[in-house]
């Protein structure tokens, strides 16, 4: 799994972290076509991505910036950071890129908004 900048994420960020633009740009995971087949996932449906530190619901999409099979990409942002391990190898830099995750179908689970996803993790979300 890797998490990177994208121009949409940049535009979305400047449009406002609460904006639809930001949501659409960052609450996704990009995967290789083969992985869609292998995992039995339909394009543009929700999936649950789980790492050693947690899991997050995002929408699985295909990308023109091809990845090789087995590599996934969630644009940097609150969704990606739900699953980024905080371990820094004593450098200050967390594991934003290159950590193992599992991806599973979660069609009916909703994607939380940027604010909620963070508040929820911090136990600040009023249910």
């Amino acid at each position, binding site marked *: 799994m890797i998490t990177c900048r994208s121009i949409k994420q940049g535009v979305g960020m400047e449009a406002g972290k609460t904006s639809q633009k930001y949501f659409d740009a960052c609450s996704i995971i990009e995967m290789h076509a083969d992985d869609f087949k292998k995992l039995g996932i339909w394009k543009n449906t929700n999936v649950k991505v789980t790492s050693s530190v947690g899991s997050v619901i995002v929408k699985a999409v295909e990308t023109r910036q091809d990845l090789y099979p087995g590599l996934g990409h969630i644009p940097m*942002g609150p969704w990606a950071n739900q699953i980024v391990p905080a371990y820094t190898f004593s450098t200050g830099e967390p594991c934003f890129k290159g950590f193992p995750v599992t991806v599973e179908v979660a069609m009916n689970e909703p994607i939380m908004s940027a604010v909620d996803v963070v508040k929820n993790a911090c136990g600040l979300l009023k249910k």
Partner: protein
Amino acid sequence: MPKVVTDVTCPFCGTLCDDLEVTVSDDNKKILSVRNACAIGSEKFNHTSLPGRVTRPRKRQPDGTFKEITYDEAIDWTANMLVKSKKTLMYGWASTSCQAMSVGHEIAEKVGGVVDNCATVCHGSSLIAIQDVGIPSCTLGEVKNRADRVIFWGCNPAHAHPRHMSRYSIFPRGFFTVKGHKGRKIYCVDCRHTDTARVADEFIQIQQGYDYELLDAFRTAARGEALPDTIGGVPKEKVYKIVEDLKAGRFGVIFFGMGLTHTLGRNHNIDEAISFTRDMNDFTKFSIIAMRGHWNVTGSGQVLSWQYGFPYAVDLSRRNKARYQTGETTSVDLLVRNEVEACFNIATDPGAHFPIDAVVSMSKKPTVTVDPHINMSTEISDIHIPVAMVGVETGGCAYRMDNVPIETRKVVDAPDGMLTDVELLTKINERVDQLMGAK
């Protein structure tokens, strides 16, 4: 009668384009149009006039909602938090002016803060590497005027630094590069076939997490030594061929980004890239430049360095000495180890960009966030203090990714009664003095 402000510096990324032209309404309140900026830059300027902007401080209530308070109340709460806390993380600084940072450091020195900036989760590893092996570098104009070999390694300017390629690195014609793009050979090393890779003459798809090995292979090849058949998925023949191409150039440059700073090895990847660059100077002229992210993260490093001697993660908590150790005084480590008692965020959004464990730790401590807009951090803070946007509603000095300082400009007035970073920090500083004097 609308007026046009020229030579405007774009406060988004480290490219710090300074040729923007912004048209503003004659009352200096609204931005009507922006010329020359990239999609992200224009959005930043247009954002000022978006509806629903918060213009006064807000305090979180027990029920989780936010209530508007006065600047004075917010300043008093913040100053008390800073004075009380044994050790406070003062994080951010990457999207404000050097003048504001100076005031912030003065406060940190009094209250025992740890001053850290976005490099800590961005190019911190690059700074560590430079501290280990130095760096042969140059300004972006040198690239434009001389470079005939350009390598993008683990960076994607097409998305993160949209005008970089047209202003400096690929397309422009310079003094000794009259052919522009035709005269340059472009290489892209990445694990994804990015949009930057699409404009490259040569794309090297590397297996994620093998940059250190591949760079070591480049150095080994440059010394004419033997290599294993493939390195990180790249055949050795390709490595030898590229190294010969590079040696044949007159002026080469490597641009690298978070593809190196975030992956396994972090500083070691950059260390090896710099060492390769140094080696290449035995054959031709070679430079390497970090693609800095936030528009003034470099400036924060510069000010911290001339005042304390360290570029980020500066621990002033003892108040009689400055210390620095990435992995100890860096924000994520401090938060995850619960080594600070309070957090003061300014001009950046750790809530969105820190790993969740660190964000949770922050949400459990007294936290103040200073930011023009609502973001993930403001929502988990006790206090959100909105301020004028630096580079749009107020000016101040900023440093480009190649450390060239450029003055940002004020193009429109901030909403009535809003403070700038400098004004706010100065008031907090005064309040801190009163409280400490009282002690």
